[in-house]
């Protein structure tokens, strides 16, 4: 019981901090928008239609949703490191709640905040002429939450091992940008050079992005945006299962690692 209250408290703190941090909220909105409109408008002409009846901005849009969820959830790892540096982690670690509930509360907090950041991008759908039904939006919510929880717990896992802020930020950037750029946010995954195709396929974020894209743009069997794994075209559900399996392992590892730190 007390551990549930612990999970809730840690989660609530993350939400409250996000709410009070208007600058972070603004940048969570603006950064993806810059990408969408600057990249999109700049490359739209030269790239032409993407197939499946969508243009480049429309193609990028679900990827950008995924990107803002990814970035939002990675940030929670950073905030664990900040908590250590600013001392608040000590208050958390001597509190009479289990470390596991602390890690779980943080993961859920990170996932909630990142999902809210994703929702903020959804508002742009009419601007770029993507029609989203209420059902698609409702299906996107758990999907974004799952992606965010997976990546958030990866961040927390790293943060519980890497003690210095500088090292953590360096490693996060080395990890975060390849994960975003090689997840199919900015280009379709078919007809890539072999090495790149390989990295895209072992990148768990790809499956999250593919699932979001499938939901937002529809996924006919001959869609040009499908991931082919060993010659098999991945459906939305299969993408979700890969994502969920990765997320499950990450959450377990994060709770284990967070619980062991002194």
């Amino acid at each position, binding site marked *: 019981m007390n551990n549930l209250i612990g999970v809730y408290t840690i989660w609530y703190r993350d939400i*409250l901090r996000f709410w*009070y941090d208007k600058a972070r909220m603004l940048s969570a909105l603006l950064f993806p928008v810059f990408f969408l409109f600057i990249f999109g408008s700049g490359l739209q002409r030269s790239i032409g239609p993407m197939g499946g009846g969508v243009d480049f901005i429309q193609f990028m849009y679900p990827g950008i949703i995924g990107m803002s969820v990814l970035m939002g959830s990675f940030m929670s790892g950073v905030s664990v490191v900040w908590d250590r540096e*600013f001392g608040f*982690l000590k*208050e958390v670690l*001597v509190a009479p709640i289990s470390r596991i509930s602390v890690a779980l509360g943080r993961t859920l907090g990170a996932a909630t905040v990142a999902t809210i950041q994703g929702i903020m991008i959804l508002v742009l759908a009419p601007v770029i002429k993507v029609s989203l039904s209420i059902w698609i939006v409702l299906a996107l919510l758990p999907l974004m939450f799952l992606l965010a929880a997976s990546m958030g717990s990866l961040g927390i896992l790293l943060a519980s091992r890497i003690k210095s802020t500088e090292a953590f930020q360096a490693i996060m950037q080395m990890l975060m940008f390849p994960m975003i750029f090689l997840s199919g946010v900015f280009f379709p995954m078919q007809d890539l050079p072999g090495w790149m195709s390989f990295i895209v396929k072992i990148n768990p974020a790809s499956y999250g992005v593919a699932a979001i894209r499938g939901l937002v743009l529809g996924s006919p069997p001959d869609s040009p945006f499908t991931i082919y794994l060993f010659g098999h075209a991945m459906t939305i559900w299969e993408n979700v299962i890969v994502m969920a399996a990765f997320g499950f392992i990450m959450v377990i590892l994060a709770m284990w690692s967070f619980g062991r730190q002194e």
Partner: protein
Amino acid sequence: MPEPIIKVENLVKKYGQLVAVDNISFNVNQGEIFGFLGPNGAGKTTTINILCTLARPTAGKATLNGFDVVHQQNQVRHSIGLVFQDSSLDDRLTGLHNLRFHAMVYNVPAPARNERIEQVLNMVDLWDKRNKFVRTYSGGMKRRLELARGLLHYPKVLFLDEPTLGLDPQTRNHIWEYVLELRKREGTTVFLTTHYMDEAEKASRIAIIDQGKLVAMDTPAKLKRMVGQDIITVRTDDNTKAAEEIKSRYQTAVRKDGDQLSFNVDNGEEFLPVFIKESGIKIASISLRRPTLEDVFLKLTGREIREEEVGDSIKEHLRQRGGGRMPH
């Protein structure tokens, strides 16, 4: 005699080759102020971390409020309150938020929560500032808020790790008023580390730790007596003659110290008037110095308690406070 609230038996903590705590044992009695002194790196913080369940001992056993610090962590955590020298507040939230979170995770019953928060905030004079963000607080206000937070769940033992380091004298006095009042009212045991000797004087008993080992443990008065007698320093018209006279009359060694003479006696306060009256020496000036905890510390550890350490830790403190760290 009630059970000791903290029992430490043969505690050892090693970090690789380094032995941070080397087989120490002591008890802390219920309701006492227990001073835990030692040079930096002596093992103070490691010991406190073990008692607070933040570190695991390599060997040995410690119980707090009857609970084992390794196997009954949650019960131990419920029994303790902490005020560390470095802030452990969430400065992106308000003072009230910080206390609410604390009340929630420490399971303060919901009906009592608001009342108790108001009570502790009033005690440290921060009720008016409760809705301000902690990052706008001054250093003293932060420490007071931490104290309020540490007391919120009525802990059995309050750990104060350098609670007033870097604070102005007025704030230091305030904080001590709160602590002493609480101890009187609730019978809270206080486990204190400090570099300020006047604070250490408030302790019922003091343990001194050096290089991981306990080198002394007693009341401040007895510790001082251990160092030796009171020191009388006089300046006279004729030091040579005076030295002869003191030597023959009181059978004590006299040291020459510039144009002054100094010698040791028991019970200097009673000795002084008698000495002035009966010796025929023409005294220009005279002073009596009693051994301080400083002398005790110096004798036992070979180091001054203040100097480098306070200097360094204040610098460290300022660096952490100021050093241009941008959180977001």
